[in-house]
């Protein structure tokens, strides 16, 4: 029987969502065009060529190396793209994803990425076109809600604050707004105004966000409700304590 990877224990909706994010088997909810994505990332002008830091690998004449022969370079590495970043922020009020699960999703399902996990934000550094692939995947699927998650290259502190009345996570630089029932982004991820309003679609309703979230909360699905998760957390805690114990 073929081995099937098991990602996360638990029987609750949160555990199920965590498994989905880690395995990359997430539902696609919206469409973001390549030009729109380039615009909000703010690293280059939409439609322009990818600037490069070195010639394509095929032209460089690589040294003989068994590892290089075994590992196929990513498209970005092959073309010699610059390393660029995308940074996501997820609200603590039932955002679909969290920094840890964005990192799991990137590291498990994509090659050549360097995810950085922080308490309130998650950054992925990669060759530009590889990074765009990760960003697009996370933006278009149920890993993001335009109201509760957003692209923020700098100034991320809204993730831990109460939501404003309109339900769009507070942003000191006001990059996202609710206009006619849809969330639009009118600045790039670091807060520079862009030429066009990029439409990210309707925000999730409170009920849908509670259903799709990967966050355990006492006012939704409490961590203590999931007996299997608790059992595994205890097991891992016990084992790492026992294995870390080193009497001299």
């Amino acid at each position, binding site marked *: 029987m073929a081995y099937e990877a098991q990602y996360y224990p638990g029987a609750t909706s949160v555990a199920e969502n965590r498994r989905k994010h880690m395995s990359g088997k997430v539902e696609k909810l919206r469409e973001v065009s390549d030009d729109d994505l380039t615009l909000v990332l703010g690293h280059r002008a939409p439609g322009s060529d990818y600037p490069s830091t070195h010639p394509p690998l095929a032209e460089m004449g690589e040294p003989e190396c068994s590892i290089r022969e075994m590992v196929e370079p990513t498209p970005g590495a092959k073309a010699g793209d610059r390393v660029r970043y995308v940074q996501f922020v997820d609200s603590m009020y039932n955002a679909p994803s969290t920094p840890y699960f964005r990192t799991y999703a990137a590291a498990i399902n994509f090659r050549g990425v360097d995810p950085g996990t922080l308490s309130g934000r998650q950054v992925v550094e990669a060759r530009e076109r590889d990074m765009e692939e990760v960003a697009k995947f996370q933006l278009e699927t149920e890993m993001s809600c335009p109201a509760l998650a957003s692209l923020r290259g*700098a*100034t991320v502190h809204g993730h831990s604050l*109460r939501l*404003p*009345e309109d339900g769009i996570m507070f942003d000191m*630089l*006001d990059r996202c707004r609710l206009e006619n029932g849809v969330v639009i982004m009118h600045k790039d991820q*670091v807060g520079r105004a862009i030429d066009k309003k990029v439409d990210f679609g309707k925000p999730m309703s409170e009920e849908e966000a509670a259903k799709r979230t990967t966050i355990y909360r006492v006012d939704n699905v409490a961590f203590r409700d999931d007996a299997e998760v608790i059992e595994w957390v205890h097991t891992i805690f016990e084992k790492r304590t026992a294995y870390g114990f080193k009497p001299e």
Partner: protein
Amino acid sequence: MVEPVTNLEDLIQIEICPARFLSPETAERLLNELSNIEGITRAFVHGPRLPKTVPYGPATGHDVDHKFSKNIKIGETEMDLAVIVGRIRLEILNEEVRENIREVCERTLPMGYEFREGLFIQKRQTVSDFAKRGPNADLTTLGLADPKGKVGNRVCMLNPAE
């Protein structure tokens, strides 16, 4: 609002913490209703700052033009909202005023709120206050602004004493 009271020890302090950050329109409605209640000596509006320009990062210096940064009018006084309203701390004369304030909150904050009594605005000068303002500082502005900042553009008198 009433005239400043010099004996701060007898006053009650309360904090209103809405379940959501208030839009300028709701904040204006709430503050206007509060300003009509007799018996509030001092009020302190607290929340995350709304900068005029991007303070750091690659876009430093670009205009922010925040949707929540608006001029609001309380009675006859206009003020520029430098924060998004998250909490309102009030110093009041007695328990009757507190119940009037609770009624206003019920009416203007449909999203729900927490309402508590405690010590939220300082009553005595700290060393920093003393160093900045000296021994004869006006006690009514105590605790309403950062002692290291400029009081003038942050403290607003709705009904200044003659």
